[in-house]
C-alpha cells in the first residue's frame, strides 16, 4: 500500500521540498487584506452561495416529481391488495434514476459540462442540481413513506387523486422533516460549489485555484480564511433555521 501510493512522506522533509514548502508557507503571511482584493473575495463568496442556492432550487424542482413518482404510499393499486406490476416497475425505474443521479460525483458532471458549456457558474449549477436532485429525491421519498399513512390512506380511499393527496396530506404532514433536510443539503451545496470552482465553475474555488497556480500565498490564505468563515456561518444559519422552523 505504501509502495502503491508512492507514499514517501520523508521526501516532504527533503531539502528542496522543505525549502519550497517553507517559501510557500512564508508567502502565506501576511494574508492579503487589501480592499480591492477583499471586495473581489466578497463577490466570489456571494457567487458561491448563489450557485449553491440556484443549484438546490433546481434540484428541488427535479426531486419533488421524482420522489412523488417513487413513493409507494401514493399507489392507488396498492389500496386493494398488492401493488400491480406496472406501477411497481415505474417506481423501481424512478428509484434507479435517483441512484444513478446520486452516484456520479458532481465533480465529474461539472468537468463534462465545463467542456460543453464553457467555464462559469452554469456548469457548477447544473452539476449540483443533478447530484443533489438524486440525494434529495431519495430522502424525500423515504420521509414521505415513513410518516403515518392513515391520513393519505383516508384521502385516497375517499376518492382523492394522487396529486391532491400529495399536497393535502403527505406534504403538510412531513413538511418540517423535508425542510430540515433541504436546509442541511443547502449547506452541503455551499461547500460543493466551492469545490466545483476548482474545475472552472466560478466562485471561491476558482479564485483559490488561480491564486495557488500563481503561488500567491497571501491571497490563498485570505480565501481559505473566508471559506472557513463561510462554512462556519452557514452551519450556524442552518442550525438556527432548523430550530426556528420546528
Amino acid at each position, binding site marked *: *500500500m*505504501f509502495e*502503491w*501510493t*508512492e*507514499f*514517501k*512522506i520523508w*521526501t*516532504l522533509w527533503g531539502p528542496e*521540498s522543505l525549502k*519550497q*514548502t517553507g517559501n*510557500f508557507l512564508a508567502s502565506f503571511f501576511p494574508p492579503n487584506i487589501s480592499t480591492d482584493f477583499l471586495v473581489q473575495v466578497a463577490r466570489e463568496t*456571494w*457567487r458561491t*452561495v*448563489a*450557485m449553491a*442556492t*440556484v443549484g438546490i*432550487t433546481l434540484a428541488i424542482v427535479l426531486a419533488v416529481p421524482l420522489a412523488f413518482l417513487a413513493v409507494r404510499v401514493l399507489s392507488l393499486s396498492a389500496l386493494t391488495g398488492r401493488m400491480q406490476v406496472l406501477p411497481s416497475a415505474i417506481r423501481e425505474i424512478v428509484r434507479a434514476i435517483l441512484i444513478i443521479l446520486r*452516484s456520479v*460525483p458532481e*465533480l*465529474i458532471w461539472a*468537468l*463534462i459540462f465545463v*467542456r*460543453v*458549456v*464553457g467555464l*462559469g*457558474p*452554469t456548469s457548477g*449549477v*447544473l452539476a449540483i442540481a443533478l447530484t443533489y436532485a438524486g440525494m434529495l429525491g431519495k430522502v424525500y421519498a423515504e420521509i414521505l413513506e415513513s410518516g403515518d399513512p392513515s391520513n393519505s390512506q383516508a384521502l385516497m380511499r375517499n376518492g382523492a387523486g394522487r396529486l391532491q393527496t400529495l399536497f393535502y396530506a403527505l406534504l403538510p404532514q412531513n413538511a418540517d422533516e423535508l425542510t430540515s433536510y433541504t436546509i442541511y443539503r443547502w449547506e452541503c451545496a455551499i*461547500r460543493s460549489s*466551492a*469545490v466545483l470552482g*476548482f*474545475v472552472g465553475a466560478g466562485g471561491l*474555488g476558482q479564485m*483559490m*485555484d488561480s491564486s*495557488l497556480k500563481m*503561488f500567491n500565498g497571501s491571497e*490563498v490564505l485570505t480565501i*481559505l480564511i473566508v*471559506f*472557513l468563515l463561510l*462554512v*462556519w456561518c452557514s452551519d450556524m444559519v442552518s442550525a438556527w*433555521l432548523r430550530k*426556528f*422552523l420546528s
Partner: protein
Amino acid sequence: MKPIAQTGIRPKAIFFLLACCALIIASFASLNLQFAAFFDPGTLRKMGLFIAELTQPNWSGVFWLKLLPAALETLAMSALGTLIAFVLGLALAIPASKSSPARFSLIRSSARWVLSALRSVPELMWAALLLISAGLGPMSGTLALALHTTGVLGRMFAEALENAPKDNEFALSVRGVSRSKIFFFVQVPQIAPQLVSYTLYRWENNIRAATVLGIVGAGGLGQMLSYYLSLFKMSETSSILLVMIGLVLLVDMFSAKIRRMLA
C-alpha cells in the same frame, strides 16, 4: 399529539418563505447563467456525440495495463489515508473529549478547533493546497484524505469517548490505576467496535473522494479521467468511469460485510 399553536406558526412560515424567495431570486439574477448555451443545436449535437462514444468503452488490453495500476493507486490512496486518519483522529480525540483529564480547557478547545478546521476544508481543497509541497501524484491525495478524515473521525471518536459508560473507568481509577492504562484497557475496547465501524464507513466515502481527487493532479483514476476527458476521448473516459463505479461498489460491499461481522 399536542395541536400546533396556529398563531405562532403563520408569520414565521411566511417570513421564512419570503426570505427564501428573496435569496433565490437574488441568486438567479446575480449569476450569469447561460442555459441557452446548453440548448444551442451545436452543443446538443456535441453532447449527442459524447453520449454515443460513452456507450462504447475501450476495453483493449493496452488500456487495461493503464487502468489497473491507476485503480490500485486510488484504492491504496483511500485505504492508507483512512488508516492514517484513524490513528491521528484517535490521538486528537483524547484531548478533545470532555472526559479527558486535560488540566487546561485551552488544550481541549484548541484540539476541538483543530479538528473542526481539518473537517471543514473539503478533501479537494486540501489536495490542491498540498500539491505544492507533496507534488503531483498520489501522495498529496493520500495526505489530503488523511487530513480531512482526521477531522471527521477525531470529532466522532471524541463524542464516542464522552458517551461511553463510565463505570469501569471509575472503578479502576478509584483503585489508583494510571490513566494511560485505563485508556488502553478500558476506554478503547469499549468504543472499539463503534470506531472501526465508523472508520469503515468513512472508507466508503473516501474511495469516492479518492477517485475524483486525481482531477486536480493527485494521481489514480481521477488523473487519468481528467487527461482523457480533456482530449475528448470519450470511450476511454467511459471505461475509466465504469472502473470507478466498480471500485466504489467493491469497497462498499467489503466494508458492509466487515461491519456486519462486527455488529
